[in-house]
């Protein structure tokens, strides 16, 4: 049969097109079962590639792990009830003596791989995770010895390490419990998370992590069948995804987005005080902020009411070094207030009347990570300028800012002031106080003050929580406020958006979201 070239080309194209349609393509997405209740959570924080909870201190993975791992206790951290602790994997706990804390464990709990949870898992977890070489050892007050009294009773012994066992009173609600079998096999521990939580890990697909309801969860099988934890770094994209129904929960809204979504009939917004305070850290190990008078002068030059007015819903006033959601919070008497005259007097006493003779000070802040840091950075710069401080504001994108704020191996850091927020889990205040102001750490400000060290050690070594609370509120916080190695500007607020038909969600103030009792109506 004669065929022209044109006819041949046409028929070849048709055959190729038909073949192409019949071959499965990476572009054809899977359809989801209509009857499966799936919640897609758009997170701004990524996860790491290492599923060992002790291998990191990142917010995104901490939030994700809270679905999978349980803790000995649970701290809801509700406003006004920061000291409330509820049973979780432990049903009761008591201080036997100042260096011994006993936990009685819940029976009938299983890990996601089927192994029964018991005392050996607590021992393996805590003795492993508290080793100083583990990156997340910072969550632990120090190394700890765990005694197995019986299969469902453990005692934490801290005498050998020089700190009281009560240091675990609150932080036990933040330490994820791992299987002893996994701890003994680091490669398995890293490859997949295996906890006792309401959801179990299924897989990671690019920037999406998929978990499914744990049928054997001791608190009752969640009504949500599946959670997709998606890393979505852009806040506008998260909001739009909520509006078009692709996401059911989004986190880290900007204040303006919160206000817009609050008017939308199809979504629900949540506003809650977080465990984060925003600080203006002074580099205390270099001039001129090695002089406490200069630091105090700077604090008295700053009108925090103006900053709060600028930030609006995203901040709450507080006069303390920890958030009101942390145990021990108190509005510190004598906390530095806006007082230009006192600022001038302090500058003159320090030998810099009107700020004359002070070097130019670099103030490092970020953009795109917290709300309005550039804006209130400019405001603070102007306020300091009014008192004679010559300040240069450096606004950095998050990766550059993160490199700049922490002290290097030589103990120094760039600039003279840094704007940083600090958010940690559990009501335990030492997770904020010691990394920031204890001289052996002082990760940012580099303060080395024996008085501050002494009051931090005193509160940590208190033998009972009542005694510790008294020392914190009457000695520790006032001392730090007097020395001002850093200036706490305000307590930060978290904003979340949710689909209207999602009920029963609990938002922890440090970031994790509890969907164990949630449902899609």
């Amino acid at each position, binding site marked *: 049969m004669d065929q022209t070239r044109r006819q041949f080309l046409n028929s070849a194209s048709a055959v190729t097109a038909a073949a192409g349609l019949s071959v499965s393509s*990476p*572009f*054809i*997405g*899977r359809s989801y079962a209509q009857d499966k209740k799936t919640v897609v959570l758009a997170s701004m*924080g*990524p*996860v*790491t*590639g*290492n*599923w*060992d909870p*002790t*291998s*990191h*201190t*990142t917010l*995104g*993975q901490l939030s994700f792990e809270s679905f999978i791992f349980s803790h000995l206790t649970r701290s809801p951290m509700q406003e006004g009830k920061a000291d409330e602790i509820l049973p979780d994997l432990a049903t009761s706990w008591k201080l036997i003596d100042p260096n011994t804390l006993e936990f009685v464990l819940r029976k009938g709990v299983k890990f996601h791989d089927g192994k029964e949870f018991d005392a050996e898992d607590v021992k393996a977890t805590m003795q492993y995770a508290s080793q100083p070489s583990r*990156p*997340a050892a*910072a969550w632990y007050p120090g190394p700890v010895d765990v005694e197995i009294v019986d299969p469902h009773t453990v005692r934490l012994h801290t005498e050998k390490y020089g700190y009281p066992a009560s240091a675990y009173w609150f932080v036990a609600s933040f330490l994820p419990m791992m299987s002893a079998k996994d701890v003994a096999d*680091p490669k398995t521990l*890293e*490859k*997949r998370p295996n906890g006792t939580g309401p959801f179990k890990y299924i*897989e*990671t*697909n*690019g*920037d999406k992590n998929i978990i499914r309801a744990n049928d054997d969860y001791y608190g009752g099988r969640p009504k949500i069948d599946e959670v997709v934890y*998606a*890393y*979505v*770094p*852009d806040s*506008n*994209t998260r909001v*739009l*995804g909520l*509006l*078009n*129904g*692709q*996401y059911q929960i989004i986190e880290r809204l900007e204040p303006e987005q919160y206000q817009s979504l609050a008017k939308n009939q199809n979504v629900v917004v949540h506003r809650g005080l977080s465990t984060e305070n925003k600080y203006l850290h002074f580099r205390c190990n270099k001039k001129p902020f090695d002089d406490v008078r200069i630091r105090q002068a700077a604090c008295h030059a700053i009108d925090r009411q103006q900053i709060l007015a600028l930030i609006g819903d995203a901040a709450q006033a507080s006069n303390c070094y920890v958030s009101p959601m942390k145990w021990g919070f108190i509005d510190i008497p004598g906390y530095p207030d806006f007082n230009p005259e006192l600022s001038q007097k302090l500058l003159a006493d320090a030998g810099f009347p009107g700020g004359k003779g002070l070097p130019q000070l670099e103030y490092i802040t970020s953009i795109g990570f917290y709300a309005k840091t550039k804006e209130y950075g400019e405001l603070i710069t102007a306020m300091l300028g009014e008192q004679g401080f010559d300040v240069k504001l450096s606004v*950095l*994108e*998050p*990766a*550059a800012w*993160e*490199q*700049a704020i*922490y*002290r*290097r*191996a030589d103990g120094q850091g760039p600039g003279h002031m840094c704007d940083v927020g600090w958010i940690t889990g559990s009501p335990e205040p030492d997770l904020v106080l010691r*990394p920031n102001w204890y001289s052996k750490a002082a*990760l940012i400000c580099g303060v080395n003050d024996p008085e501050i060290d002494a009051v931090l050690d005193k509160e940590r070594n208190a033998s009972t929580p009542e005694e510790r609370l008294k020392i914190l509120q009457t000695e520790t916080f006032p001392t730090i406020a007097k020395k001002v190695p850093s200036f706490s500007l305000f307590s930060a607020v978290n904003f979340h958006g949710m689909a209207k038909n999602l009920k029963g969600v609990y938002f922890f103030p440090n970031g994790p979201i509890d969907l164990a009792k949630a449902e899609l109506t």
Partner: protein
Amino acid sequence: MIFALDFFLRRLSQGIVIVVLVALLIFTLLRVVPGDPVRIMLGPMTAPSVMEATAKKLGLRDPIPVQFGRYLLQVAHGDLGHSFIRSAQGGSTGGSRGGNTFDTENRAPVVELIRSTVPYSLLLAGLGVLFSLIIAVPIGLAAGLNSSRWPYRVALYLSAVLVSLPNVWLGVVFILIFSARTGWLPAIGYQGPSYAILPALVLAVELAPVMIRAISVSVAANLLENYVAVGQVRGLSRYRMITWHVLRNASIPLLNLLGVQIVGILLGSLFVVEYIFNYPGIGLLMINAVFQRDFPIIQAVAILACTVLVCINILVDFAATNIDRRLQY
């Protein structure tokens, strides 16, 4: 044939020099600008001594020429390195790790990451070019054929409006109108080819004005050439003159436009559009890598983009010499 061989040998050797120079520039800039990948990897609470030890283990404290030489050798063997951040088992980004997490076999090969994301970007880019041609060709042709009448003015004003629309804003507006408000199209991420439509429309809006102007100018210029009048005098109809001769001659500068300018615009726009739509292509991979200072991914994507541009440039120039042999050199 001899010309083709000579052409490709000459241009490919020039291209290799360009790619190496671009690679050196990107490599050096990454290590000089602020932002420490080790800090991002290890998280905020890690001791400085641990960070230094990790950086040394990753070779980040060696002199830059030494690091670059090592990298070039690796690339010459087809190995684009392993991500600092993404693990071999598929974890996303960021965070601190334990001792052997930095071992090569635990970190995702960059080649695999690129291979898994390129098909999505190709789909998006292809759809974007298709949509822009659908918009630009009829408008550009009408404008070029009627250069003193209203179609030309409409094309001019439309191009000016479209080129003024920032793609970041347009993407957000499209998602809001066509997805959130009306539910006509899906928008975020990827769960099927329909997810590429909205981002492709944003790309098309960006590409179309350039195409409209180029088509209209090229067609209008060719209509003024002597051969058009001579052809018609010789008995060729206006329709045949335009479709068989004017369009062919007008296509040479368009080839250059499509090959180089459009690909260049696409490469830049893809990053932004994929980020806004959370579309899992190479653009989103690159932007996340920049945020997290994932040097191996940034380097590899930059080298790939440069190589693609150089190759397209070579192919376009060669095609032009085949259309008009006067362009051979």
